[in-house]
Structure formats: structure tokens, C-alpha cells
């Protein structure tokens, strides 16, 4: 499945600066349609209103974490197949194992660069 550069992407992070960084990196690698949410519950609300081609989420947010969001998404019949990449500073093996078990498509450890982001998006879409 080729990467569709026109697909809407939802970036979820409680730090506006991080959202801005990811938005800029996505722009550099060819993605312009980017929405944002400040935590899992806001993201879930947006996902129920609009169909996203990819979700890029932080882990540690309040009130709903990215991990909880991932589990909610996978448990929701309509959202379950949305590709989901975790971008986080959580760098313990147990976090990666838990995310994989919950159905994450890929996992990026912060800090990261545009090349890493691009390669993970490519990997998710099989490019």
C-alpha cells in the first residue's frame, strides 16, 4: 500500500511545541493535512468526527494518555484499523511491548528526526 500524501493526519501531544515540530517535519516529508489534539480524549472526539489516515500520538498526556487512546481506538469497530504511531520519550522495553500488544503500528523514541519519522510512516504503509 503506497503512502497517500494527501491523507489527513492527527498529531496528539500535550506540548504545543512538539506538535509544531511534528507538523513541520510532516510538511517537509510531504504531508500538509495535519490536525492536532492535546490529549487522548480530544483525539478520540476528533477521530469520531473525521476519518484520519494516520494517528501520531505521544504517550504521556492527561487526562487520557496515548496508550489509553490506542486501546480505545483498537476497541472501536469504526476506528480499529486506523494506523497508529506512538512518538514518545517512554523508552522502557515494557512500554514498547505494551504498545505492540495494544496494536500500535510503529514506535518512535524521542528525540527523533525527519528521516526516522518518514521511515516509520513508510513502514506502516508498507513502502
Amino acid at each position, binding site marked *: 500500500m503506497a503512502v497517500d500524501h494527501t491523507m489527513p493526519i492527527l498529531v496528539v501531544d500535550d506540548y504545543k*511545541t512538539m506538535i*509544531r*515540530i511534528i507538523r*513541520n517535519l510532516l510538511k*517537509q516529508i510531504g504531508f500538509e493535512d495535519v490536525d492536532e489534539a492535546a490529549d487522548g480524549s480530544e483525539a478520540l472526539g476528533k477521530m469520531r468526527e473525521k476519518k484520519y489516515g494516520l494517528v501520531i500520538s505521544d*504517550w*504521556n498526556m492527561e487526562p487520557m*494518555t496515548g*496508550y*489509553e487512546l490506542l486501546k480505545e481506538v483498537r476497541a472501536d469497530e469504526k476506528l480499529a484499523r486506523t494506523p497508529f504511531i506512538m512518538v514518545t*520519550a*517512554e*523508552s*522502557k*522495553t*515494557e*512500554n*514498547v*511491548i*505494551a504498545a*505492540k500488544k495494544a496494536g500500535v503500528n*510503529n*514506535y*518512535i*523514541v*524521542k528525540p*527523533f528526526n525527519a528521516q*526516522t519519522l518518514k*521511515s*516509520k510512516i*513508510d*513502514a506502516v504503509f508498507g513502502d
Partner: protein
Amino acid sequence: MAAAKKKEHFREMRAYARAYAEKEPSFADVMKLAAIAAESMEAFCASMDATTYRELRDIANYIETMKVEIGQFQVNDLKESRIPAAGEELDAIVKATEEATNTIMECAEALLAADCADLESYQALVNDKVMKIFEACSFQDITGQRVAKVIETLQMIESRVGRFAEAVNAKDVAGFLDEREAARARRKEELLLNGPQLKGQGIDQKYVDDMFGKK
């Protein structure tokens, strides 16, 4: 000395008891026996007083030491001044790094969006934005100094807590201070909120990639 006197009293009282087992004692005999018993009790009470006094003096000394230790802890100074000040320094660090990041990103975004058709104005824009980036990077020096102040406060707390714990021979008790603290700990554990790891303690991207089967 006191033990010998006690034995002597005991012997005298036993002798009286034997002597008057079969006959009625006189009033003078009863008074003499009472005097011996009272003298014996006095010695006993005197020894009791000395022990009690020693114990009370030890407790008083301990309380006095604790008062000194608690005073040297400077709890009010820590609670009302140093800890809030450290919190303010950390807030200032967050703000400064955020401002610097935003400035740098604004400059980078402006450079990316710049029209390079007019070379002269493009060069002026590049110079201006690069200067702004240099200026923004000065946050590193200020935040370094703020971090040093926070570290100083933490070291001060560490040394005082350590000294106090040693003075009271503190033993840790498992559990939480209140329900809020317990709920926070539960959330961290359930949602695997481990936070960033120090260098060498966490896993890197290559390790993650291997777990996902490359790419």
C-alpha cells in the same frame, strides 16, 4: 550498700514474724516492725526514683536533641522559601526553553517559506533569522544557572533529610501519604508512565526497530 541494708531489714522482719507467730505483739513491737518496713520501703523508693529520674533525663535529652535537629532542618525555610523558589526556577526553565524553541522554529519556518528570487532581500532575511537563532540559543546559559540553583536546593534538602533520618534512626513505612499520592502512583504503574530514561538506561530506536522487525 542498699542491697545489704535491704537484706538486714528482711532478716529483722522475718525474726519478728517468727517471734510473734504464737503470741500477740505489743504496740511497741508493731511500731518497730512498721519502722523497719518503712525504712525498707524508703530505700526501695529511693532506688526507684533514681531509675525513673535517669529515664526521664534521657527522654528530656532526646527531646532536646530532637528540637535542635528539627530546628536545623529549617522546615519553614524549606517549605516557604526554598522549595517554592526551586519550583519557580523550574517554571522559568520551561518557559525559557519553550520561548527559545518557538523563536528558532519561527526563524526556520520563515527561512523555509522565503522567496529566493530576490537574492538581496533573501540574504537580508537569512542574516536576520540566523542572528535571531543565535540570540535564542543564549537560553542555554541562563537555564544552566537556574538548574544549578535547583540542584543546590535539592542537595540542601538531601543533606538535611539525611541528617534528620540519622538522628531519629528513621525507618521507612510502606504506603502513601494520602489518597491523591496513592492514585498518582497507581496511574503511573497501570499506564506505564515511566518518563524519559537517563542515557544508557532506556532503549534506543534501533532496539525498538528490532522489536518491530526492522524499518
